[in-house]
């Protein structure tokens, strides 16, 4: 329905634009032409798929093609422009390094993701959730704690991390602490807002049943809060990983993704740096995706989940 609102521009206009872009690229630097060609190619393929299929698989294949397009541009550009490996390695080199350093990457993954990020995520979100329930019960706390909380949340992590490393030592505990600090307030704010999001009539209904506090919490407020809680969890999931990695920049045992990235930069082993970045991005996206999936299951009833696929 809504798609029909968009008026169709004639196709030749698009092609004219593409031709113009090529002309400009060629004028600037001939090497830009193949790079641009890859971009246009990927785009056209995706446009075709998008038109053909409202089907589910389009949703998976299109971002992949998009990503492959970007990687190809990178690879070809890297070779054509002869960029030094010390500045930016090519995707193929990164892939090779990834394969050769599997064991290192695995050790780092366990140290940073499992020990640091995951434990911090669970503790931070759990504590924030519990505090949110308490705050929700006592409006006084809510009025007082939330503004102060917002202030604390604004403390830049790069400043907090060294302090927390000083307090909690070099191992994963301090990484978890950084993650706890990072995820705590997004989660708290979202949960508090969620617990208040049941509408007046839904609450009145509970009153007519003379339902107790816990019954109302369990049967009304928590289910109603779920979309917000998941918003918080999603934000927290990307923050957790970044937090754990960043914290390792400020002191760590000699393993961990942040450790590896910072030392490898010093050794100009940029391929290993990028291999770690690939791990971080993959794990982060998977973590985010997992929570989004869970959200879809738990809050199936929410309009945002019903409306769009």
């Amino acid at each position, binding site marked *: *329905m809504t*798609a*029909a*609102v968009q*008026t169709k521009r004639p196709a030749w206009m698009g092609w004219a634009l593409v031709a113009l872009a090529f002309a400009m690229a060629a004028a600037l630097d001939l090497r830009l032409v193949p790079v641009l060609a890859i971009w246009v190619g990927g*785009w056209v393929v*995706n446009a075709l798929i*998008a*038109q053909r299929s409202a089907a589910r698989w*389009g*949703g998976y294949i*299109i*971002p992949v*093609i*998009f*990503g492959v397009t*970007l990687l190809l541009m990178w690879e070809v550009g890297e070779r054509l422009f002869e960029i030094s490996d010390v*500045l930016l390695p090519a995707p193929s080199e990164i892939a090779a390094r990834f394969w050769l350093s599997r064991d290192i990457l695995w050790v780092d993954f366990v140290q940073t993701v499992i020990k640091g990020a995951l434990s911090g995520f669970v503790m931070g979100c759990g504590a924030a959730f519990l505090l949110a329930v308490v705050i929700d019960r006592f409006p*006084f*706390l*809510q*009025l*007082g*704690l939330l*503004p*102060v909380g*917002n*202030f*604390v*949340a*604004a*403390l*830049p992590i*790069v*400043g*907090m991390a*060294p*302090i927390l490393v000083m*307090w909690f030592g070099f191992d994963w505990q301090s990484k978890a602490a950084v993650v706890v600090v990072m995820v705590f307030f997004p989660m708290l704010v979202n949960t508090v807002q969620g617990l208040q999001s049941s509408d007046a009539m839904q609450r009145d209904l509970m009153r007519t049943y003379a339902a107790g506090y816990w019954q109302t919490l369990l049967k009304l407020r928590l289910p109603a809060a779920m979309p917000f809680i998941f918003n918080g969890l999603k934000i927290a999931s*990307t923050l957790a*990983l*970044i937090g754990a*990695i*960043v914290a390792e*920049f400020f002191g760590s045992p000699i393993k961990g993704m*942040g450790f590896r*990235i*910072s030392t490898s*930069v010093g050794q100009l082993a940029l391929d290993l*740096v990028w291999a*770690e*970045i690939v791990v*971080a*991005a993959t*794990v*982060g*996206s998977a*973590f*985010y995706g997992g929570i989004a999936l869970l959200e879809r299951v738990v809050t199936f009833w929410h309009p*945002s989940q019903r409306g769009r696929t």
Partner: protein
Amino acid sequence: MRSIIPVLTVVAAIMALWYAAAVPMNAPWAYDVAKRADIELTFTDLVAATWSQDKPKLPAPHQVGVELWETTVQKNITSKRSLVYHAWITLSATLLGFGMGTVLGIMLAVGIVYNRVMDMSVMPWVIASQTIPILALAPMIIVVLNAVGISGLLPKAVISMYLSFFPVVVGMVKGLRSPEVMQLDQMHTWNASASQTFWKLRLPASMPYLFTSLKVAMAASLVGAIVGELPTGAISGLGARLLAGSYYGQTIQIWSALVMAAALAAVMVALIGLIQRIVLKRMGMAT
């Protein structure tokens, strides 16, 4: 206004906790010093000692307060030793990055909402981009921009932008899609053009989402500017203060830079909140 008393109570409670925590955290050092000087510490001595160390593990609130006072009020604001001067450096990168991030975020969101291919291809990569540790990328960004002759404010702003466009994209995609089917159908019955639908329906409908994400983006942008100040070398700005404080073990200096940064963020976010209230009020959407 009615929240003043609760806020003060909470602040007082935090201060009390802070003072209390400073004692055990700084005690080992105090004992060390005492042992080397061969004196016994009474409890009051201990408390006094833990609240007045030069390089405490956790500085007492008044130490941070004094440092803040000395580096803001008592220094000429153009002096390199003035925290206001450094805050201004950071703020200018923050604002530039925030502006660029907002524009980029809105443009991406419009593309995602209006273009099916972008909708399906860009979003997962935008999410992935945010899972990359910025601290690892920042030096590369700085170096690359340096190589093409860009230095100073802009590289920091680019990092700010990198962090701040994300909340804007997410919020605006949600906001631009927030009009109900019926409202879109109405536009359809009037045969409104795509741009009329955008300006008269989607954009106004997205305002509440925009402002919420702008607040998040502003905080992210500040973090970006600070991160961007680390690898450019400790030149100036709050990030440089943090760094320099860290190299010379000046805990109090770190804390005062931290508090300044948080205050900066709080002020900017409050400012956005004010604009939000004015705009939404004029749009009749104030709550």
